[in-house]
């Protein structure tokens, strides 16, 4: 069952250099309970996609000009500010890249979790403080009752991120948007945080959009993957299909550029060129200047989404 569907979302930023079309008609579906990986290089619009679902993109300079974000059957873009506040934290939660700066340094962790619980009053909690301690225990913070009195600077990075997860999941949302949740953490702590997230996801039956540029994390945790390039989603597939049978030249380049233990690889491939300036994006397919297989049509017409079967969708003229 579809929990979230983004249809033809266009978002632009007014910058000094001109208008940047940061999201150029995004289509994305998230099913209940699944983990969707959103991958791509820096600046391709992954975080903006996540933030636009909760309408956290600052306006100005950001502006959604077209499209729909359907969550639980309702278009979020038609909601008032007050209605959006009811959804934030209660139905859709978000965690960010750097846990050390994502928690307010002047309030205790417990205070910040209690704030979310008091605000949304989730069912099945007898008192706010009990909810705080339970949620810290659920992310495997040892001695949660006394740790709740700690300030963020008394927590390590991994603990801060688990604290963030505890806070954001204390109200049992049905969707978690995790924006590079492990990028700022070292590898052993990454695994621990991902495990905590996966356990809670199973327990709450929650869907997760995992925004990352770490393909390894995607392979380990995601059910489906959407690959973004310069404000477009170029390919979506379930995780096995994407890794075994990538279709879009960008996806192939991306996967080819990562060393893999399960394959005999003599050389890593590189994608020539660099990401386009979004104030002056290339005409047609935004990837064509870097694509070895580009054809005339790629320089003129933007490719549409093509369903190759089993939910494997690719936006490329090679298959049209």
């Amino acid at each position, binding site marked *: 069952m579809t929990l979230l569907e983004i249809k033809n979302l266009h978002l632009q930023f007014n910058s000094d250099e001109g208008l940047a079309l940061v999201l150029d008609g995004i289509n994305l579906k998230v099913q209940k309970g699944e983990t969707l990986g959103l991958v791509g290089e820096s600046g391709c619009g992954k975080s903006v996609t996540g933030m636009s679902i*909760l309408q*956290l993109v600052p306006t100005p300079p950001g502006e959604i000009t077209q499209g729909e974000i359907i969550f639980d059957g309702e278009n979020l873009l038609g909601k008032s500010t007050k209605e959006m*506040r*009811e*959804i*934030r*934290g*209660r139905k859709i*939660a*978000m965690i*960010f890249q*750097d846990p050390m*700066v*994502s*928690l*307010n*340094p*002047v*309030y*205790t962790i*417990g205070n910040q979790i209690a*704030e*979310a619980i008091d*605000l*949304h009053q989730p069912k099945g909690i007898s008192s706010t*403080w009990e909810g705080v*301690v339970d949620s810290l225990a659920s992310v495997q913070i040892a001695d949660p*009752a*006394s740790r*709740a*009195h700690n*300030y963020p*600077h008394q927590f390590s990075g991994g603990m801060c991120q688990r604290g*963030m997860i505890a*806070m*954001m999941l204390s109200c049992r949302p049905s969707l978690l948007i995790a924006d590079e949740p492990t990028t700022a953490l070292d590898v052993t702590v990454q695994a621990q945080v991902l495990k905590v997230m996966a356990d809670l996801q199973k327990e709450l039956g929650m869907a997760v959009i995992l925004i990352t540029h770490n393909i390894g994390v995607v392979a380990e945790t995601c059910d489906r993957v959407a690959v973004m390039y310069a404000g477009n989603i170029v390919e979506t597939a379930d995780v096995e299909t994407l890794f075994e049978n990538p279709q879009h030249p960008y996806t192939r380049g991306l996967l080819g550029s990562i060393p893999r233990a399960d394959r005999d690889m003599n050389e890593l491939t590189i994608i020539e060129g660099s990401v386009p300036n979004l104030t002056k994006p290339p005409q047609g397919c935004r990837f064509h200047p870097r694509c070895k297989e580009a054809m005339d049509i790629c320089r003129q017409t933007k490719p549409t989404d093509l369903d190759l079967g089993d939910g494997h969708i690719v936006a490329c003229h090679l298959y049209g």
Partner: protein
Amino acid sequence: MACLDTKTLKRTSVFRYILKRLALSIPVILGVTLIAFLILYLTPGDPVINLLGARSTLEDQAALREKLGLDQPVLVQYGRWLANVVQGDFGKSILSKQPVMNAISSRIPFTLKLTLTAFLSSIVIGIPVGLLAAVKQNTAIDHISMGFAMFFYSMPDFWFGLMLTLLFSLTLHWLPVSGAYEPKSLVLPALALGLPKIGSIARLIRAETLEVMREEYTLTARAKGLSEWVIIFKHVLRNAAIPVMVMLFLSLPWLISGAVVIETIFAWPGMGQLMYQAILRKDFPVIQALLLIIAFLTVLFNLLGDIVSGLLDPRIRVN
């Protein structure tokens, strides 16, 4: 029960922090007294000859020197002087021959009244104005309030005091020109002293607020579903206020020294005016006492600033 624990925990850590700051201010105060003492000691001329006249006999000079304790080593003299100062005895004014403390004690309340009015108004007016300007960034409210803030901040206080007198006393006849005969008299000197401070506080709090509003934890607060008011007053303001509070308390002694000029212009009978007169007439014991009092107030307000920022920011308490 759990909440009670937090409070006790917090209280002990705040208490320990305050004790530590207090202990640290003792050497500073001692250092200041030493400097104030040495100013008098290093002043050219022999006080005994000054008192008895150049034609006095050597025996008389020796007797007086012994009587005043001036034959003792410097450290002993300093110790005796310090013991007197601690008891509020700063010696006698060279000019009036009256105890210095008599002249000063009546003036302290006036200076405190003036500087605290300026100080409090800079908090009560400066912080809301700066906050509003930040929340309404790049609107007319922001431009107008920051224009005024810049103007007040840039004006020299003595010129500002004169212009205020010209407008409100001499032209509009709303307020007295000078003196401290009625409550209304406080308004002009407090404005002259306080408006530049209001301007600087408003500008600083605006800048800090804008910075904190860009912090990731503000985004977290928004993602939690908190209302904009809770975000601004609970999450943003407290963080933005930390550097502003430190600056405010550090600037209090600066306000007191600014009062030297303002009190002279408005004939406000505070310590500043006395300081001005004492400097003009080289009345060293009075200068020395005022110096000590101002230095003591500086240390006191620094301490208060440290305590307030420690209360606001748990990270400061730890170190």
